[in-house]
């Protein structure tokens, strides 16, 4: 029995009753919202996942900041001459500098295989933690360490050989870092990477470790002054500097905006129709003493109810799709569902409900009780 329920619960019950009374229309609207929010969630997840991975690649090799080519749109496009490395090493404030080449190639049927060229004498090699086999040493020409993810996906084992750009590499060890870009890629000697990918005497980035971490800003300024073609950044700034990541973020923002606009129009259409059909009902409510703002909140609640249900379904679908898609096409993307992300998608759903509901709610509340009552 509902008798002991409070009036608040009952009015909320009224919202649900009203929404589910028109199952077909509410259902279709909810489906529309769900698709929009699903897209938004999926894009947010992908953009966020890429950012996280990218940040880790840069961050976890040690060092206080990195140095890249100023005009490069992407880390893989960046070229820094090793002469700069040697000159930086001479600076008193700097403890060590290490260079790394990051390139991408095709192996087996995998279109994107990231190859990291490192100098085993430098601390960055410790970042690639060996789980099987051996770590790369300076003498290991023609050898490669591969990430655990690709080894599992492609059934690669220590001792197997890989064909890359016409050269054959023997798998020396398998490593795991936790960053899926790396775990889906491989590590070879820097010198081999340079000749294989035609880098000459260049690397993609330098990691710089200072004697005194408090001098980061001073040293960065000094380096950028001395080498105008270079850019020194903390790892947290790298993502903001990556044009392709920015592009993905931009596209996801744009699609979110389109989803909000389209979803709002959908809800608005549904709610305007609902209000028009219920003019008499609104008249009765006004006649029994409901205030304009009660009518306003009644319509808004219904619109929010639709958008929130749609939003929740959409968020769940978005997460499922990205997870399945990532597994399906084997993209090196670890999807991490953070509360922030779910809240963002949810807020978008709420905004959508308010935007779509405010006009019909306003119209419903503006009706004079008399006109509404005499409506047939």
């Amino acid at each position, binding site marked *: *029995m*509902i*008798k002991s*329920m*409070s*009036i*608040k619960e*009952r*009015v909320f*019950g*009224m919202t649900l*009753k*009203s929404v589910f*009374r028109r199952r077909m229309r509410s259902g279709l609207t909810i489906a529309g919202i769900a698709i929009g929010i699903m897209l938004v969630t999926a894009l947010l997840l992908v953009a966020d996942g890429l950012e996280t991975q990218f940040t880790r690649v840069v961050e976890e090799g040690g060092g206080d900041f990195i140095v890249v080519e100023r005009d490069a749109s992407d880390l893989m496009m960046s070229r820094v001459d090793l002469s700069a490395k040697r000159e930086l090493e001479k600076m008193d404030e700097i403890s060590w500098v290490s260079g790394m080449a990051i390139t991408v190639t095709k192996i087996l049927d995998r279109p994107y295989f990231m190859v990291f060229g490192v100098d085993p004498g430098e601390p960055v090699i410790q970042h690639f933690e060996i789980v099987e086999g051996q770590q790369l040493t300076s003498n290991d020409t023609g050898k490669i360490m591969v990430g655990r993810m690709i080894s599992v996906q492609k059934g690669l084992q220590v001792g197997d050989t890989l064909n890359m750009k016409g050269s054959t590499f023997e798998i020396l060890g398998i490593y795991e870092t936790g960053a899926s870009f790396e775990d889906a890629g491989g590590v070879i000697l820097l010198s081999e990477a340079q000749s294989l990918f035609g880098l000459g005497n260049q690397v993609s980035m330098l990691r710089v470790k200072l004697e005194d971490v408090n001098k980061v800003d001073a040293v960065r300024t000094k380096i950028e002054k001395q080498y105008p073609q270079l850019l020194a950044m903390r790892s947290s700034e790298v993502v903001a500097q990556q044009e392709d990541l920015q592009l993905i973020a931009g596209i996801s923002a744009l699609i979110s905006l389109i989803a909000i606009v389209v979803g709002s129009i959908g809800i608005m259409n549904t709610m305007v129709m609902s209000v028009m059909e219920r003019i*008499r*009902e609104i008249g*009765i*409510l*006004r*006649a*029994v*003493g*409901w*205030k*304009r703002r*009660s009518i306003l909140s009644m319509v808004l609640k219904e619109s929010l109810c639709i958008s929130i249900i749609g939003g929740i379904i959409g968020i769940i679908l978005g997460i499922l799709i990205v997870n399945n898609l990532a597994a399906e096409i084997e993209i090196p993307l670890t999807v991490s569902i953070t509360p922030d992300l779910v809240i963002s998608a949810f807020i978008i759903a709420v905004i959508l409900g308010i935007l779509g509901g405010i006009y019909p709610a306003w119209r419903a509340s503006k009706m*004079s*009780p*008399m006109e509404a*009552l005499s409506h047939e």
Partner: protein
Amino acid sequence: MFLSTKNLTKHFDGVKAIDGVTLTVEKGEFVSVMGPSGSGKTTLLTMIGLLDQPTSGEINVDDELLSEVKDEDAFRSKKVGFVFQFHNLIEYLTALENVELPMHGLKSKAEQCKKAEELLTLVGLKDRMDHIPSQLSGGERQRVAVARALINDPLLILADEPTGELDTATGAEIVNLIRKINKEKGTTVIMVTHDPEIAKKTDRIIFLKDGKVSREEVVKSESVEDFLDLKNSTFGNQLIQQKATDPYMEKLGVFRGGKLTKEGEAILSVFRKAEELEKAE
């Protein structure tokens, strides 16, 4: 005096729906408003209930000038209870929820909840509280509407043809219910109707024509009606003409040997008194 209107007018696009209505209603009175369609009955009711504003003139309810009421919604929910002709319940809410609607946003909700149940019991729908309107008969729906009108203990019930959609017997039940509430709670009632039989159950009938009060009639009580029926019967005629045409009159002892007895004279004097009163009216 509980309610009064003074020179009330209402124009719709230049048409005078109400044209200078002045009337008064006493506290606890049950008044019906009759008149042909378009005579302004409903318009009058909606202005008294603050659903609409008059073009000119004033309305006073419970010592309050309606044009000066600040919170119209509170006036409608607390002082007035509406019962409409039809479509007056929200179809997807149960009887109980419909009855509770006027207390939306008011205090002591739990208490009012209990009250909705009490009122539904009062109107005889104790077992049908959780039914939605489509599961109720026409008469039951109007009972729910009456219960809803009562939820906030209004001073005034405004009923717009509450029996208009009901058959004669059910209509009579609803009016009897409103009459019962009027007597027991002392609630003042103004009811629009076009059914003379229904109007006869109220205290007074106000006739409207072309937006004006054409006449008013105090409804005689049933005992008065019965007495007048008796006076106008064959029995009454024989007494008044002092001529017994029926041998039964001798047996009753009002005539003996064709002449009025003392008892007969006594009854005749009562009939004469009634005739005098009728003429005086």
